[in-house]
C-alpha cells in the first residue's frame, strides 16, 4: 500500500508544528526578513517577490495565558491564540504583519498586536468581502497596491512585476503539486491520513516555497504508481474549519474509527490551494483575479455573493469524492460558519448525505466523547448507506 515517506514528512511536520522556530532559522540562514500574515486570502506571492519569507501565522498549541486578559473568551481559538502569542512576544520574529481579511474577531486580535507591540509595522488591507459588485475588483486592486507599498516600506525594497511573475509561477507550481496529493487521495491510489494532509498544506503556509516544493517532489517520487492506498470501506469528507488547522488528534480519532478521509474543503486543506494565480497579463492585476476566482472555485461563507453557494459546492464535491458522509468541523465561535451551517444542513439532508457537526476548541476538546460520536455516525453510515460494507 502506498504511504507517504516518513523522512520528508518529518521535515514538513517540524515546520508546521513550530512556524516561529522555522522562521527564526530561516532568518538566520538567509539573513532575510519574515512577514507574518493572516488567513484566508492574503497573497503570499507579494512577500516572496520582495525577497522575504511569507508566513501565515498559525494557532499555537500552547494554552492561552496572557492573551486571556486582552481578548474575550468568546472568540475563536485562533484569534485568542494570536492575541496570546502577541502578548508573549512570540510574534516578534516577524518584521511586519499584514492582514487582508475583514473578520471582526481577527481584527480584534490584530488590534492586540498593535497594542502589545506598538513598534511593529502592522497593516490591514481590507479586501472587500462583497464579491459581486462592479466596484469590488478595482477596490481590491487598490488594496493590493497598498500591501505592495507597505511591504516595500517595511523592507526597503521594490517589488517588480518580473519578480512577482516569478513568485506567482513558483507558488502555482507548489499548489499544483499539493493538488496532486489531493487527487491521489481522492482516487484511492495513496493513503494520506487527514493529519498528514494537514501537514502537507500547513507546512506550505510556513516554509520557503522552493524548499517546500522540493520536499513534495521527493514524496511524490517515492510513490509506487502500481500500488493503491488500501482505503477503508467508509469514506468521509471533512468540511469547514476556517483560518486554522483542526487539532491532529481530532483527525486521528475520526480515522481511528475505521474510515478514510478522502477529501476536504478545510482551510488547511483544499480550500487553501484550490486556485492558481493567472500567469498571463499584469501580475498585480492577476492577484485581484485570484482573489475573486478562488471564491468561485471553493465558495467561502466569509465572502458575500449570490453567484455561488457553499452548500451546493459541498454536495458536488462529496459526490465527486465518492464519500459516504461528511463531518463538518466548526471552530467554536466562528460566526460565518455558524451563519452558513443551516444552509449546509438543509442541502445535505435534502441530498440524503449523512453529516455530523463537531465543534472544536483551542483547549479541552473532549476526545473520548468525540470518538463515541464518530463511531455512532460511522455505524449509521455502514447500516444505512453502504449496507454491503457492514
Amino acid at each position, binding site marked *: 500500500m502506498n504511504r507517504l515517506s516518513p523522512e520528508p514528512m518529518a521535515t514538513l511536520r517540524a515546520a508546521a508544528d513550530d512556524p516561529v522556530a522555522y522562521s527564526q532559522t530561516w532568518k538566520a540562514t538567509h539573513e532575510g526578513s519574515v512577514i507574518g500574515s493572516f488567513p484566508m486570502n492574503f497573497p503570499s506571492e507579494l512577500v516572496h517577490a520582495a525577497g522575504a519569507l511569507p508566513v501565515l501565522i498559525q494557532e499555537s498549541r500552547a494554552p492561552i495565558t496572557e492573551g486571556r486578559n486582552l481578548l474575550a473568551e468568546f472568540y475563536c481559538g485562533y484569534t485568542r491564540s494570536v492575541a496570546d502569542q502577541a502578548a508573549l512576544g512570540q510574534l516578534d520574529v516577524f518584521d511586519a504583519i499584514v492582514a487582508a481579511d475583514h473578520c471582526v474577531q481577527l481584527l480584534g486580535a490584530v488590534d492586540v498586536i498593535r497594542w502589545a507591540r506598538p513598534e511593529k509595522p502592522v497593516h490591514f488591507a481590507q479586501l472587500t468581502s462583497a464579491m459581486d459588485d462592479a466596484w469590488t475588483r478595482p477596490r481590491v486592486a487598490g488594496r493590493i497596491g497598498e500591501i505592495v507599498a507597505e511591504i516595500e516600506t517595511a523592507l526597503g525594497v521594490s517589488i517588480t512585476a518580473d519578480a512577482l511573475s516569478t513568485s506567482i509561477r513558483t507558488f502555482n507550481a507548489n499548489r499544483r503539486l499539493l493538488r496532486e496529493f489531493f487527487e491521489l487521495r481522492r482516487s484511492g491510489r495513496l493513503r494520506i491520513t487527514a493529519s498528514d494532509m494537514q501537514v502537507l498544506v500547513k507546512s506550505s503556509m510556513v516554509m520557503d516555497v522552493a524548499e517546500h516544493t522540493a520536499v513534495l517532489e521527493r514524496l511524490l517520487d517515492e510513490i509506487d504508481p502500481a500500488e493503491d492506498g488500501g482505503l477503508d470501506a467508509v469514506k468521509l469528507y471533512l468540511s469547514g474549519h476556517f483560518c486554522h488547522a483542526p487539532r491532529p488528534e481530532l483527525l486521528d480519532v475520526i480515522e481511528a474509527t475505521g474510515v478514510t478521509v478522502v477529501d476536504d474543503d478545510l482551510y488547511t486543506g483544499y480550500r487553501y490551494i484550490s486556485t492558481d494565480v493567472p500567469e498571463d497579463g499584469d501580475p498585480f492585476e492577476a492577484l485581484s483575479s485570484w482573489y475573486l476566482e478562488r471564491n468561485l472555485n471553493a465558495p467561502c461563507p466569509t465572502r458575500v455573493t449570490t453567484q455561488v453557494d457553499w452548500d451546493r459546492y459541498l454536495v458536488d464535491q462529496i459526490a465527486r469524492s465518492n464519500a459516504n458522509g461528511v463531518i463538518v468541523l466548526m471552530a467554536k465561535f466562528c460566526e460565518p460558519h455558524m*451563519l452558513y451551517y443551516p444552509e449546509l444542513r438543509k442541502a445535505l439532508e435534502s441530498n440524503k448525505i449523512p453529516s455530523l457537526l463537531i465543534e472544536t476548541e483551542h483547549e479541552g476538546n473532549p476526545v473520548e466523547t468525540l470518538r463515541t460520536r464518530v463511531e455512532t455516525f460511522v455505524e449509521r453510515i455502514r447500516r444505512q448507506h453502504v449496507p454491503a460494507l457492514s
Partner: protein
Amino acid sequence: MTVAQPRKDKTRRLSSTKVGGKLVADYWENIFTAKERGKHVVWYNGAALNPLFQAAGLEWCHGEAFAARLAAQHLEVPAQAAGAEYGYIGELCSYARTHLGCAVLTHQNSNRSETGVVGLTDQQELAGKLPAPDFFVNGYAGCSTGQQWDAMTYRVFDRALPLFNVSIPMLWGNKPDAGYMRGEEWVEVSKYVEGQLRELIDFLEYQTGRPFDWDALSESMSYIKRASELRLEGMELCRQAPTPATYWDWVASIAPINFLPGNQDLVDYFAGVKAEIEQRITDGVSAVENERYRVYFDGIMNWNKLGFLTRKFAEYDVAVVAGRYTHESFWQEPQLIDVDNPLLGMAQHYLLCPLNHGLKNLQELLLRRLDEYAIDGIAFHSTRTCRAMTNPQSMLARTAETERGVKSFFFEGDVADASFYNDELFDSRLEAMLEAIDVQRMRSAV
C-alpha cells in the same frame, strides 16, 4: 469607604421619551401592513440607509432594530426558537439569529399566502409579523458578521430576491495621519462609500421602477440634521452634575434617530426631549436621586435588561451619563450633512459607526468623553455575541486607567439573549469599582 446597597427605584426617566415610544410603535404597526397597502418593502441591516428608502417611496425594516425591539419587549424567544430549529447556533450574534428567525417565520407565513400578507393567526406572535421583503440591502460597518448576515437572509428566502451590498471599509488607521474624521484614509473612504450610495440609488430606481426623489432626500435629511442637533444639544446639557438625563434616556431615543422617517415629528420629538432636560435644570431635578458616581457605558445595549439596568445602576447612586453606543452613533456629526447634497455626509456617518474604528480612534473618543462628562468609572458590557463591540474593551479599560485614572468593571451580557447575563457577577464587580472610586476620592481629599 462605603458602597451604597441596592434599595428603592431611584431613577427619574424623562417622560418625553414616551412620545418616541409611541412614534416607534406606530412605525412598526404601519410596517406590518405594508403588503396590504401594496408597498415595496426593503429589509436592511447596518447603517441608517432609511432616508434613501424614504425618498424612494419604500417601506423599510431594519433587522437589528426589530430584533432589539423584540428583546426589549421580552418577545424574542419565538424568533430565536425558529432560528435554532432552522440550525443557528446559540453563540451566533443574537441580533442576527433573532432576525433570521423572524425571516424563517415570515418566509413560512408568506409561503402560505400568495400575496405575502401575513395571516391573522400568525400575527399573534410579533416575531412573525414582518412583511415579506421585495429585496435586501446590507450596509454594515465594522462587523464582518453583519456583512454576511443578509447573504443568509437571501438564502432563507430561497435565493430568489435581489441583494445589494454597500461595502463600508473600516477606519483602521493604517496611515500616520489617521484619526477621528481626519487624515487621508478618512477622505478616501468617504468618497468610496458615497460612490456606492449613488449605485444604491440606481438599484432602488430599478427595483421601484420610479426615478429617485432627490428633493425628498434633501427634505428628510434636513429634518434628520435638525433632530440630530437637538439631540446633541440635549446630550451636552448632561455634562453638568447631577445630570438631568442619563444614558438610558438616550438609549430610549435610539430608535427614533436610527430609523424613523425624517419629518417634523422627528424634530418635535428631540425638541421635546431637550426642553424637558432644560426644564429639569431650571427646576434642579436630577435623573438619578442622589447622584454620587458618573459612569460611562461601553458596549452595545443589553435590550433584555434595559429597565433592569437603569434601576440597578441608580440603586447604587450611579448616573450612567454617556456611552459609546449612544454618543458615537446615529447622525452624531450633523455638521457633515449638506442638505442640498447629502450623500457624502451620509456616507461619512455610515463610516462613523462605533464598531468601525480601530483602537486608536476609540481611545481618542473614549478619552474625550471621559473629560467632557467628568466620568468616575466605566461599565464595560462584555457582549457575548457582539464581538464587534467587545473587541477593544480590555485595551480601552487600560487606556482609561493609565491616561485618566478612571476605574472600570466588566459584566457579561448580550444584545438580545438574556441567558448570558449574570446578576451576581454584575453586583460584585460594580461594587468593587465603586469602592475603588471611593478610595481614590479619599486619597485625593487627604
